[in-house]
């Protein structure tokens, strides 16, 4: 019989998996709304402003107010939108973002419980599958909106995806070769001696740049370039459907930071007892998310041909070279 399900490294009871998934869900849906308000506050500080500080202590209740407002909005649908697909778009985006959370390792196996959703032997492929899957949501949603701006945004996101995903995969390939495994926990455990950011610094830079493009964040936010195409694929969306796109964007940012931490910054490793492992993971991830905000405050949006030529003419050769050199070094040593 052909085994269609991916091999799982550490088997656990089903009820435990359900509890773990609930905990991860609760954790992420506590972190992500805070990220939205923190982004606005940090961005404000970068511009000599305070940012939102009116609702609740330090303005931390702002996401609650935003969510309430979005939920209360009318479900408006453009007349020439393709109904079912139009509603499916935001769902797919959120689904693919949340699905990737399952493999983020918050810690090692402790007392028989792995501090992650599931440890599949093809972790990297799982991540790529779902991060590309989110573009189907954008593409379907943008196309089904029946608006030229949405369509342009959707096309841009598709073109952006294919130019950056290859270099992203190649950037991680160096780490995979050094660790000799696709499973995220083994990759973290392989960084006991030295974090992979040191030998794989070029890979890290390429991964981060491609990650910015993957999460369609500034300076690669061309799919939603508001100066040119209104809001890109989300132009026709309102209410919580628009909110879902926003939520997915932040989840994706968290996921990409989490993957970067896992592959290059030693994952959960840090000083202190093993209990602190998830804390270290989250602290490192938030630090990288802060870097996303920092870049957003610094760099302007690229022109479309610049985005393409950067992806194909700079990143891809650089990533290939990195993989080649790593391969030679791995074989020699």
């Amino acid at each position, binding site marked *: 019989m052909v085994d269609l399900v991916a091999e799982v490294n550490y088997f656990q009871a089903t009820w435990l998996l359900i509890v773990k998934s609930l905990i991860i869900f609760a954790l992420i849906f506590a972190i992500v709304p805070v990220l939205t308000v923190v982004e606005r506050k940090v961005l404000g*500080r*970068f511009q*000599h*402003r*305070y940012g939102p500080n009116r609702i609740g202590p330090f303005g931390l209740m702002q996401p609650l107010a935003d969510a309430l407002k979005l939920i209360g909005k009318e479900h408006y649908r453009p007349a020439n939108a393709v109904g079912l697909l139009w509603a499916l778009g935001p769902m797919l985006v959120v689904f693919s973002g949340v699905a990737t959370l399952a493999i983020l390792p918050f810690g090692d196996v402790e007392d028989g419980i792995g501090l992650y959703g599931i440890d599949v032997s093809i972790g990297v492929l799982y991540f790529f599958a779902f991060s590309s899957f989110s573009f189907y949501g954008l593409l379907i949603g943008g196309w089904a909106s029946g608006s030229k701006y949405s369509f342009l945004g959707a096309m841009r996101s598709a073109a952006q995806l294919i130019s950056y995903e290859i270099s992203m995969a190649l950037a991680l390939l160096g780490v995979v070769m050094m660790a000799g495994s696709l499973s995220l926990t083994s990759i973290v455990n392989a960084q006991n001696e030295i974090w992979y950011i040191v030998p794989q610094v070029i890979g890290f830079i390429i991964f981060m740049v491609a990650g910015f493009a993957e999460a369609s964040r500034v300076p690669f936010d061309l799919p939603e370039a508001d100066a040119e195409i209104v809001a890109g694929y989300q132009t026709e969306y309102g209410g919580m459907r628009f909110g879902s796109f926003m939520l997915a964007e932040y989840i994706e940012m968290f996921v990409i930071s989490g993957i970067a931490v896992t592959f290059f910054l030693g994952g959960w490793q840090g000083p202190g007892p093993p209990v602190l492992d998830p804390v270290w993971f989250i602290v490192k991830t938030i630090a990288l998310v802060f870097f996303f905000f*920092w*870049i957003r405050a*610094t*760099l302007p949006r690229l022109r479309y041909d610049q985005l393409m030529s950067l992806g194909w003419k700079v990143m891809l050769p650089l990533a290939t070279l990195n993989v080649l050199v790593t391969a030679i070094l791995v074989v020699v040593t």
Partner: protein
Amino acid sequence: MSEEFPYLEDQSVVEVQRGPEPGGAGGAYRAFGETLRGLKTTFARIVEGPVTIQYPEEKTPVYPRFRGRHKLHRFEDTGLEKCVGCSLCAAACPADCIRVVAKENDPENRISAGERHAEIYEINLSRCIFCGYCEVACPFDAITMGHEYEMADYNRSDLIFTKEMLLAEPLERTPLRREGE
């Protein structure tokens, strides 16, 4: 030419400063060096801290000669009103927002220091343009422009300020600029 543009004294063409050419080492420098420089620039803004004045709680100080809401004055020693109802302010007002009705002073019960006093003195602040001509026209310094600028209201009729309102000491809620600020 050199007198007009002293900085062009010894060169007829100003050299344009250009960044490194794209590609190669220059391109790498542009991509990473300049990005790092940009990151440093933006982070310095965080270190400087916000410059926002949180308006309802904090207020921008006004200059001493700021022209805000009008004030009518009394003599400090006798307590009599300075206004003698001459209507010069009303005549000077370009927006025609001041109404003065004068009345003879009762010798038993004097209201102003002059022969007459203002029985009705109204300023329609919804028409006032805060030009300060009334202040200039007044021969007795009876009307001056104050520092108050928060005068929004829900009704137009509430913006017609009577003599009593103008004479009353306004709530001191506008900070004044300090020396050298």
